[in-house]
């Protein structure tokens, strides 16, 4: 790569990096439940993005392209690691906030606990459901973009989301104290545990 091309790519890359780093980091954080792994994976993705910028010709949206790199990076990570699930880190309390206070007002300590429960729930979902659930419910991507990222039809993405929501409902209805105070909470302060 000559100096002029390199300078141009660096400028373009920095813009892309600044606008996408948070969502890619959060995608990995929710997929792995581990901050250190999320950091390493985010770094790996953006180095691939930088190296591959010359090969991106704008045939798809750049965010879609970056998510595709992220998904492939995650698949390689799983392949190398040979295990799918990770325990949830415990240093997250300072960054927890309530988004929808009016509907389900929870105290700070409750939200902290809920965060642990939800991450456990996510960890126990198969990747085929977890990916679209994170991309749609937490990252706000459109169905058609998720379909492009995951190489699925829009119908298939919807089916996976419906099943993921159904699973979420099953677990929360029967086991989550925050969902229904008459449920016996079996989190023990360490997140939701599969029975």
């Amino acid at each position, binding site marked *: 790569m000559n100096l002029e091309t390199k300078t141009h790519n*660096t400028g373009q*890359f920095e813009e892309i*990096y600044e606008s996408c*780093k*948070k*969502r*890619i*980091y*959060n995608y990995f*954080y*929710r997929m792995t439940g581990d*901050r250190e792994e999320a*950091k390493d994976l*985010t*770094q790996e993705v*953006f*180095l691939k993005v*930088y190296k591959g910028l010359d090969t991106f010709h704008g045939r798809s949206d750049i965010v879609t392209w970056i998510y595709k790199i992220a998904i492939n990076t995650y698949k390689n990570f799983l392949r190398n690691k040979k295990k799918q699930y990770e325990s949830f880190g415990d240093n*997250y309390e300072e*960054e*927890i*906030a*309530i*988004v*929808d206070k009016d*509907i*389900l007002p*929870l105290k700070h300590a409750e*939200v902290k606990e*809920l*965060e642990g429960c*939800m*991450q456990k729930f996510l960890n126990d979902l198969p990747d085929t459901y977890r990916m679209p*659930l994170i991309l749609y*419910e*937490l990252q706000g991507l459109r169905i058609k973009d998720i379909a492009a990222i995951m190489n699925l039809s829009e119908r298939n993405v*919807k089916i996976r*989301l*419906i099943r993921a*929501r*159904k699973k*979420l*409902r099953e677990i*929360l*209805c029967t086991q*989550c104290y*925050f*969902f229904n105070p008459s449920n016996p909470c079996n989190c023990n302060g360490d997140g939701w545990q599969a029975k």
Partner: protein
Amino acid sequence: MKCAELEKFIFEYLENKLAHSVKEEFEAHILNCLNCRKYIDETIKCITLFRQLREIPCPEEVDKKIKYHLD
């Protein structure tokens, strides 16, 4: 609309993307069917609870590592 058909439309209903006539049928059904109404209410509540997981900032350490590789 029957209970078994509800599943087919639930996604679009929650996204407010059902055609007007179907939406009317859907709502008429859940108004009269306690089980389906409960199911929809619980699903909405679950999604709301799940969405309380918010984004966290990307650590500065990642910025530093990226910068190091670019320099």
